[in-house]
């Protein structure tokens, strides 16, 4: 398994033409496996914190972070794949990693995908940009417990 993954990821770095494809392939191939994301050590803190979050039995990374319509999913994967892997290769991204606005909207849609019935009353008032009730404004911790960033040491471990 690790062998396969490693080669998939090594493939990613080969060239602009094909890495996007490989990255997308590789992810969809094992897309329900959060380890895949965390294989990239940069994602490690998010994996750790997800494991401690209220959703770790309810949702996987892709459930929240990727769109769920067929086409949108692939576009997002290609786009993110390019950004993440170039970021990783050149180590030139902003730290702590912060979610992009575009991905925030994907995330929001995914909250609704699962929870719409419960929040109908609030979302019916409008979900245009300025009218959105962004769930994360109050439920920031659902996916990752406490804020993670570079990964904070546990409060109480000695």
């Amino acid at each position, binding site marked *: 398994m690790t062998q396969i993954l490693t080669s998939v990821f090594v493939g990613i770095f080969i060239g602009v033409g094909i890495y996007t494809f490989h990255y997308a392939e590789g992810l969809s191939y094992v897309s329900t496996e959060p380890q895949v994301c965390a294989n990239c050590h940069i994602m490690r803190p998010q994996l750790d914190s997800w494991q401690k979050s209220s959703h770790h039995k309810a949702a996987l990374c892709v459930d929240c972070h990727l769109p769920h319509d067929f086409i949108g999913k692939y576009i997002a994967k290609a786009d993110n794949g390019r950004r993440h892997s170039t970021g990783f290769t050149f180590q030139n991204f902003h730290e702590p990693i912060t979610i992009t606005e575009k991905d925030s909207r994907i995330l929001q849609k995914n909250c609704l995908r699962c929870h719409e019935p*419960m929040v*109908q*009353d*609030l979302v*019916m*008032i409008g979900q245009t940009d300025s*009218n959105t*009730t962004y769930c994360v404004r*109050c439920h920031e911790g659902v996916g990752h417990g*406490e804020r993670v960033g570079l990964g904070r040491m546990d409060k109480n471990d000695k």
Partner: protein
Amino acid sequence: NIHEKKIEAINPYVRLVEVTEDDTDPEKWGINWPREYDSYKKTAIATKTRFGGHGGSEAMPAEKIERDPWLKRMFLGYAFSIDYRDRRGHAYMLEDQEKTLRQTKPQSGSCLHCHASIMPLYRKLGNGDATKGMEESYKYSYQDLSKMLHEMGKAFPVSCVDCHEHKTMQLRVTRPAFIAGIQRLADSSAPVPHLPSVDLWRQGDRKQKYHPNMDASRTEMRALVCAQCHVEYYCAGKQPLTFPWGDGLKVEDVERFWNNSTFPDGTHFYDFAHEESGAKVLKAQHPEFELWSQGIHARSGVACADCHMPYMRDGATKVSDHWVRSPLLNISRACQTCHKFSEQEIAARVDAIQERNYQLLQRTARALMDQLDAIEKAKKEGASDNQLEKARDFQRKAQWRLDFIAAENSMGFHAPQESARILGEAVDYARQGQVDAFNWRGVDN
């Protein structure tokens, strides 16, 4: 079991009755939205926290000016020294206004702006134009306007139609004095990092005035609906109800606005002349919106409704708790979604903030009382108006700041550092006034 709940919840907005702009009776809206209405009605329940609400068994809330006699002395010469009580739930707003002994002095019809579901009456007064109606209202006595209100049908406290557009249920503001006030703010260049829509509007062509219902984001609206009433104002017989935000929202911005104001008759603005000292002073009223604006919550996009009307789960759906009240009665919903600390710890944090503020407030009050004593003494010793001018000016400044925090209802919580800063300035001015009063002989005018 998500699936089952989906079915149960599918259509929460079946309307059983139509509601219109003229429907001020919440009961009718309650037929469509029973969950919100049920919680709305609870604002009639008496509640009490250390500093919030009213929970006595008495019919009327406790008298603030008896609990803190310095308040009474500070207001001598003004109706607030007659009767000034703890606030309580929205259900009582009209009744408490009708009953207050401040009504033993003439009050203007504009008082109703924030204590009743008033828009139909404004439209009537203005022949369909509510703004015009509001601008007329100050000329009526409270009694006359109140009578008109009651004659138009049942008179209600703040109601659904005041905050909601009836077709979509979207939030909207209605109060003309607020709209004029927020436009004054937008037209100014005062920084408003907590109201991004104002900044956006300022960058535009400004052909149309800033209007919350068009421009503000939903998050902002969750504060602005409250800012229709929980604000500092002028409301008396000399000019229309005014929200003083033309220079900004900070205590000194508002002070500057009043200082630069003149009444229509050309005289310099003041609220009342202090009975003992003769100083022409200002009165601050519940500047919740203004103080919140200076705090870290506002800057972080946390609105009044987030804390005072948190979502609550009701069966399979989540609704906004329309039992508007102290968040301390509801910490788990009001705070814990954002702050992952125990209820006890959160309560302790608020208490630490409020206790610091309370102690500093009492200290400031003592300083102001000392200053009043000093002016009394100077007067007895024969000080002239000229010789007291500086001391009186200090009183105006000190009292304005002290009152700003005393009248604000969160005991410093909405902006802890800012409140303490304001009180720090107030102490300084009061004591300087005391020095000047002692030194009246040295003041050459």
